[in-house]
């Protein structure tokens, strides 16, 4: 069972209180962008075995989004943080590096 700390309301929410909202830190390419950029934005997703960044919604709770860093292989949670960020905070990156030295994900490492 996965429990994630919601940074918006301070609740340690059970998986069933939450809704998975896909990959975090997507950069949107919409009208005016090239077909390749739009294709990648629409369809290309990371599917790592290991460190992963996801967007979650505290759907039965405060109704707000947040982001989580966790390991897809072990379900270990490295931390959760505000959805209003373009990249993981340093503290989250440090927490991952301590457990998974040499990790990388997209443009982050």
């Amino acid at each position, binding site marked *: 069972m996965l429990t994630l700390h919601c940074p*918006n*309301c*301070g*609740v*340690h*929410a*059970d998986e*069933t*209180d939450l809704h998975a909202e896909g990959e975090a830190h997507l950069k949107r390419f919409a009208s005016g962008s090239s077909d390749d950029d739009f294709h990648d934005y629409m369809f290309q997703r990371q599917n790592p075995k290991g460190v992963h960044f996801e967007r979650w919604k505290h759907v*039965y*709770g*405060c*109704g*707000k989004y947040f982001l989580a860093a966790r390991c897809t292989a072990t379900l270990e949670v490295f931390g959760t943080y505000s959805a209003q960020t373009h990249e993981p905070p340093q503290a989250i990156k440090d927490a991952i590096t301590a457990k998974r030295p040499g990790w990388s994900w997209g443009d982050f490492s």
Partner: protein
Amino acid sequence: MSNAVSTLNGKVASGEVTIREGGLRGMITFRGDLSNAKLKSVCKTLTGFGVPEMGKATSNGDKGVAWMSPDELLILVPHAQTNDAIAAIEKAMKGQHHLAKNVSDARTHLTVQGSFAREVIAKLAPADLHPDHFQIGDFRRTRLGQVAAAFWMTDAETFEVICFRSVGEYAFDLLAASAKAGPVGRF
């Protein structure tokens, strides 16, 4: 105005833990900046309580304020005074971006009262209800069985529960079944 009737018209399931449908309750959803000083004073005037801290609720009888999310409050007032209360909020918040809406008839209010009321809720919700973690004044939005609900404690043996009206009967029956099944003895 048509004759307002609550979801289950005050239905009661008596037992060691008694479930009561709370009848007509005035409920106002407020959205906006919760740090606004005028909001604090209008809450105080309407309910006797200021804006609660994150994850808290304060209530006394028909009146109360609950923290729903970083930009949302639930304001409880006597049912007949709901529209006047909204007018007071609109007046106080004039010029500020906000929303105050009467949701009284969209919600159901239930009371769970008795020696093991805590366990009646704990059996149904994925929330930590250990006495060390959930105490009087704490407020939690989560689910009960299969439906969204929120609850808070007003004293050691009383929980107030709110949910959508459309699932009010389900929530009542669920709580009544949980109460009938007896205590687990974990707390």
